């Protein structure tokens, strides 16, 4: 099961990298979303899957899942949600101001003006 999850996470990463290398700003943002999904899946797999019980079942529980990765993922999801929201707003504003969402045309460094 862990191996399968690792492969899924890897596929998500591959898709994310492909999207982030494209020229359209919206695709790039979707890429960052997939990247964080891959990361969270990876984190879940790190704690081990399969144990088949809730995280905390009192002191003498015979089987339980490690609660730490779940806590970490929860935090990471909230953060990536916030960052994606900010990113979308800034991207939309940039599109309005600059009139393009093509990264080719967003190259910078005209220091003289």
């Amino acid at each position, binding site marked *: 099961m862990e191996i399968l999850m690792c492969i899924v996470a890897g596929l998500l990463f591959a898709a994310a990298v492909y999207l*982030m290398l494209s020229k359209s*700003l919206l695709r*790039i943002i979707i890429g*960052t979303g997939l*990247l*964080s999904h*891959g*990361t*969270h899946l*990876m*984190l879940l797999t*790190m*704690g081990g899957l399969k144990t088949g019980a809730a995280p905390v079942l009192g002191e003498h529980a015979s089987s339980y899942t490690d609660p*730490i*990765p779940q806590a*970490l993922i929860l*935090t*990471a999801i909230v*953060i*990536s949600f*916030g*960052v994606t929201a*900010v*990113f979308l707003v*800034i*991207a939309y*504003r*940039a599109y309005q*101001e*600059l009139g393009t969402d093509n990264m080719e045309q*967003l190259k*910078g*460094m005209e*220091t*003289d003006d």
Partner: protein
Amino acid sequence: MINLPILPILFPLLAAVLLMFLSKSVKAQRIVSVIASAATVAAAWAVMLKVKSEGIQTVDMGSWPAPFGITLVSDMLSILLVLTASIITLCVVLYSFRSIGSGREAFYYYPIVQFLLVGVNGSFTTGDIFNLFVFFEIMLMSSYVLIVIGGTKVQLRESIKYILVNVISSAIFVIAVGYLYSVTGSLNMAHISSRISEINDEPIITVLAILFLIVFGLKGGIFPLYFWLPGSYAAPPAPILALFGALLTKVGVYAILRTYTLFFYHDQPFTHDILALLALLTMVAGSIGALAYKDVKQILIYNIIIAVGVLLFGIAVMTEESIAGTIFYLVHDMIIKAGLFLLGGIMIYIAGTSNLNKMGGLIRHYPALGWTFLVASFALAGIPPLSGFTGKLLIVRAGFESGEYVGAIVVLLSSLAVLYSVVNLFMAVFWKKPEVPLPETNKQTASLFIPAAALVILSVLYGVGTEAVYPYVMQAVEALIHPEIYIDAVLKE
């Protein structure tokens, strides 16, 4: 147990919340900002005295005992950096009154600056690796807002790249923490450190070391990963640039210093050699940029990269002396970079451009500004008795003693490049006869000049008073060279 170490995080947080409700009144925002920043400085000072007299201070959040809950740890290194960051924020807030513009002031500039300070102070203080990630994110979120606030075209264009780079590095950070957790089974930094010494030479630890180097290198701007830095940092106005240049990259350097002394000191021939090599390339790349550009902002920004290289080299040598030099240089560089960016901001404000070819002759009307800038430049280059000297001396001497001749020589040469670039900047802005005469407006700059000059004076005092600072720095070095001290203090064994 006392809760003192949390105060430098709590004050700016409360102030930021309060400031969000005061967004209608700019005057109230200014007053609250100054009071909160001054209170943070005072709190940091109090914690520093406490750490000096009683050793490392820890707070277990929610009273969960050490390896299980989140622990805040104020050792001397943390608190020195917290104090420096708080002082810089206070000066930048004072400088912002006249320079940031009423549009930005009305749109939550002051609360976001306080949030940035929460993130920075938290990153310096926390003793939990995942909590470090959270504080990094607080800091980055604030920096996303600060880089785009005002919404000019350049800012919008550059903020997209800045956010993208940092989102990717955050993802790698989470993965690295996940790997570290699966290897050691803990998130508490002291606990991780003792677990790693038990499993010792596992190749996975070396992999983790490189992963963390990529993450923190992206924030700190080390050689192949600094590509985003010059473009993004040049976009926002001077006070924000000063905060970024002085604080953000240094948080990355601090994180490298912490992890490479606490976690990854077992495979030094590999990890620290890579660190040394990257440090040299960083210095070279930074020097090339600093010498090539004819722009006030770009020259100063490339000087950030050179300084990061010097600091990394100090970490890579990893002897008691070089770590001491690194800490001396880290504090010095934060203060003087903030000062230089603020002075640079005044120069740009007066001349109306940041292009060196269009500036000149400022010394006639602004002599105090000129000579202060020259002193700051000398301090940056490390001319004795100014503040850059001690740190560089210790780093270079440690480099020669441990046989890293090439590195030590590159550090010395990079100082020459720094000196040439900033003196060149000084001559072009202040002495050269301008091609097009500058508009004779005689702008009022006193309220901008005072906070900037205060930082330069602080830097001079730091250099002249090295003897007084020395015991504090050595206490910080002690805990870095002997991780057991840090571990015992946190786990209370």
